[in-house]
């Protein structure tokens, strides 16, 4: 390495200063949430956003999980959390499996018109879901699953269909055609090629899609608020209602603990499998 001149060294210092400042900006809300959640009401009133809590006080967390009131219902976030789990697990599994099958057909078993149909389906990735809210709530009523977790699962599978199909189709399109052709000559059929050749190659894209769908569906608010009933509200709706419940004293520590609880599952996945999440984000932006 050659010795750096003074201007070069100054430039390095400036670069790191900018990077650290930006990191502080992005981390500040997370720090404030965590710090506030461990404070009691007095500490919140006397301290400020950045002051540290006096001790690791889990009262607000306990309240947020199982005691805090939303209207007259004082069961905390717990029921909403489990509603979200019940909704997210089947919805993610079904939409991922469905997307894999569709992507397999659209990349390796193309037929006349399949590209055009796929192109028309892509609009589903971008459409504002406001247009489906009113008709869909009527359909869910006719099917007898309005205000239920089942109804939300159905909506999330349909809403995620275009995206999961796109992910798998683009991934499978990069599989060497010779591999599949050779298997075909050996007499392997549609399912045999899928299970013997395609599925074993699919681990990365399955991870990307599972994480993408999990994050989207766990974080969804629009469908949750429009289609859920008293016993099926997902956690985003539960959190929003709890925070906006009008009470004489605002318990900011409980609000922050509740927000952290609601964000914890997707944060954990982001920390553990971030590279798949980033791949999903970029794949969602760069199409075709």
């Amino acid at each position, binding site marked *: 390495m050659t010795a750096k001149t003074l201007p070069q060294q100054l430039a390095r210092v400036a670069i790191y200063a900018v990077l650290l400042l930006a*990191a502080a900006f992005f981390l500040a809300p997370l720090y404030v949430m965590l710090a506030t959640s461990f404070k009691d009401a007095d500490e919140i009133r006397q301290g400020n956003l950045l002051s540290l809590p006096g001790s690791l006080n889990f009262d607000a967390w306990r309240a947020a999980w199982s005691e805090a009131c939303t209207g007259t219902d004082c069961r905390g976030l717990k029921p909403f959390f489990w509603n979200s789990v019940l909704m997210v697990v089947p919805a993610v599994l079904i939409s991922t499996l469905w997307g894999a099958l569709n992507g397999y057909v659209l990349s390796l078993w193309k037929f006349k018109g399949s590209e055009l149909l796929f192109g028309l389906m892509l609009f589903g990735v971008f459409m504002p879901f406001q247009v489906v809210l009113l008709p869909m709530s009527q359909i869910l009523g006719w099917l007898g699953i309005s205000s239920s977790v089942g109804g939300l699962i159905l909506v999330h599978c349909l809403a995620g269909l275009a995206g999961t199909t796109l992910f798998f189709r683009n991934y499978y399109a990069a599989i060497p055609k010779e591999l599949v052709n050779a298997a075909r000559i050996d007499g392997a059929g549609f399912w045999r090629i899928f299970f013997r050749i395609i599925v074993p190659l699919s681990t990365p894209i399955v991870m990307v899609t599972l994480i993408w769908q999990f994050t989207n569906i766990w974080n969804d*608010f629009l469908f949750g608020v429009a289609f859920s009933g008293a016993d099926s509200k997902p956690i985003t709706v539960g959190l929003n209602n709890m925070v906006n419940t009008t009470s004489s004293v605002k318990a900011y520590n409980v609000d922050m603990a509740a927000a952290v609880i609601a964000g914890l599952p997707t944060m954990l996945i982001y920390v553990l499998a971030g590279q798949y999440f980033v791949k999903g*984000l970029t794949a969602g932006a760069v199409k075709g």
Partner: protein
Amino acid sequence: MSRTFETVLPKLVIAPAFVLGFAFIYGLMIWNSVLSMTASRMLPNYETFVGPEQYAKLWEMDRWWLALKNLGVFSVLYVGGSLALGMALAIVLDQKVRAEGTLRTIYLYPMALSFIVTGTAWKWMLNPSLGLEKLMHDLGWSSFTFDWLVQGDTAIYCVVIAGIWQSAGFAMALFLAGLRGIDDSLIKAAQIDGASLPLIYWRVILPILRPVVFSTLMVLSHLSIKSFDLVMALTGGGPGFSTDVPATFMYVMSFTRGQIGLGAASATMMLATVAAIVVPYLYSELRSKPHDR
């Protein structure tokens, strides 16, 4: 298995996706526009066909115009701010720095969180009594006031701040990937010609990144038109309805005000806006790919 069955099998497998997918996307689109031409109030009522009356009513409402104005302000600042901050971060991160992975993870984590979660946090930080204002007072800046969140004409800027904070990392990730795809020899050649680093970025690198910037712009623009959660969590459309955007307008009209026809009309307007931006983009993306398989 017979040969004929093998040829229809792929079509059978994909059929449910096309049938249900198109019913969901295009069927419900048409259904919604039918609803928007009825006088439906609390419940959908298809016998009260009124033609474009709901649209006329919509465009006469001050509240709708305010929602559009807010959307305009929010979109321009949110998209512009996210692109600018994202680009700045990507360029600085691309200077062969230490702990790049950790920094990238920090810049991008807000994207993993729900807008409801981050909106709740920002609402607490920006509240006038105990939030940022108190922090500044404690730090010795006693004349500092920050009450944007509770003032009707400034609350929308709070939504912008929270939105940029959430999305800048996303733009950064896309731009950084783009920067990594640029051949180093290009930069070296420009350096040998005596160009300064800022000039190289402005004249050489940014033009190469144009397609990535364009894709990011598309994604952020359509997200801004659909933005709903963040507004609901941060301001609930308030104070009053001063931070209403089309998405919250649609929700309130359809589900709390009992104005289903009007809500459907506003949803159609949102669809038209997104389509005007996205359809040309999708068309060009699909056209430009070689159909080699």
